[in-house]
């Protein structure tokens, strides 16, 4: 078993492991699962030098506070997120869309998301997780996925399966864009709406 792990000091409101997810189980009553904000999920993995489908920690509003034990580890956080990295007595304000190095005993406190609901923490490597239907995405309603289908909880340990030691620091000039317009095409039930309803919608 790997000696590298995170200890969860505070789990946050809704912190789960997510990846690209599974999208072929509607017939057994299991809805689509996977990262909610696909763009920020992919960017997190890209910054960490991972394959697109590697699992990350997804958090909403308040994120987790983690303490790291192990070898040097590169991490990246995406979204619009306020977080701090504590190295001994020093506390560093974190920046999204760039990589940071965590060392033994460092703490990562993901305080909150701001204008985005979801944020993503990717490590340069892999968490040690169980896969179901080729995905470790957690579906808490059906108790499916890694972590026995449950949210990440206080005091639990998250073990790492592998660390990419050949990482390079990366930074991306990226701003979460505000959606000004939603493009719509008429669906099969468009005629169900009244003329007034259609007018109000557009």
């Amino acid at each position, binding site marked *: 078993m790997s000696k590298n792990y995170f200890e969860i000091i505070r789990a946050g409101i809704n912190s789960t492991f997510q990846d690209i997810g599974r999208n072929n189980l509607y*017939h057994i*009553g299991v809805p689509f699962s996977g990262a909610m904000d696909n763009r920020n999920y992919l960017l997190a993995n890209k910054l960490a030098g991972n394959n697109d489908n590697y699992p990350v920690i997804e958090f909403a509003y308040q994120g987790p506070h983690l303490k790291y034990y192990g070898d040097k580890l590169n991490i990246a956080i995406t979204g619009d997120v306020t977080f701090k990295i504590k190295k001994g007595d020093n506390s560093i304000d974190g920046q999204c869309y760039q990589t940071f190095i965590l060392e033994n005993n460092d703490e990562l406190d993901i305080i909150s998301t701001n204008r985005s609901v979801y944020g993503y923490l990717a490590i340069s490597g892999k968490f040690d997780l169980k896969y179901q239907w080729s995905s470790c995405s957690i579906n808490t309603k*059906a108790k499916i996925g890694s972590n026995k289908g449950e949210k990440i909880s206080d005091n639990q340990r998250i073990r790492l399966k592998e660390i990419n030691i050949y990482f390079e620091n990366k930074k991306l000039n990226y701003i979460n864009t505000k959606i000004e317009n939603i493009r719509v*095409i008429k*669906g099969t039930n468009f005629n169900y709406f009244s003329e007034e309803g259609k007018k109000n919608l557009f």
Partner: protein
Amino acid sequence: MLINISNLGDAALYCDFGKEVNRKINSQVIRYFKTILKKNIVGVNNLAPSYNKLIISFDLKKINFNKLKKIIDNIEIIEDDGLQYKKFEIPVCCEKDFSLDINRLEEKLQMKEEKIYENFFEKEFFCYMTGFIAGMPFLGDLDENLRAKRLDTPRVKVPKGSIGITEQFANIYTFESPGGWNIIGNTPLNIFNSSKENEPNLINPGDSVLFKRITKEEYQNYHE
């Protein structure tokens, strides 16, 4: 009889088998669903069968609406004797702790508790579809005299294993969940098992179900 195929958004196809909810129409939906599942059509990534509709989602990079519609229009449907359906006996305990709405049903249906159970346990049910929560089977049809509306105010939490009835259907809550069906008992049997990736659902569309009444002692000592 498949009446119409139309598009649903840009990456799904909507097969309409009619408006009524009955076994005859639903059996057609199931035959199409099982045939398409077996054919493993390239580009199809999700199938959602319901009482009288089948939604087929697809990957636009691999197939489009017109191509898939043509395949479905010309598909050779496997008839029932070529499909595998199962029959299950589901143990149900109806002690007071589990039959949360039996008194309410006595009033709604103007029928004594024992008569309600007698009618319920005599019936062989047919699984129309699974959904709402993972593996939850929708089982029909209840006798006319057992049909009741949902609760006026749904429960925030219905216990796992609860057996609910409403209108023409019975169901089994595979997980603790919000719900508004009239709860008449609870089964100790695990209906959804995610560790069995090939067959997580115990009961699938087209299968038959008989409920068997058990005592609280049998419930507590039940081992699968």
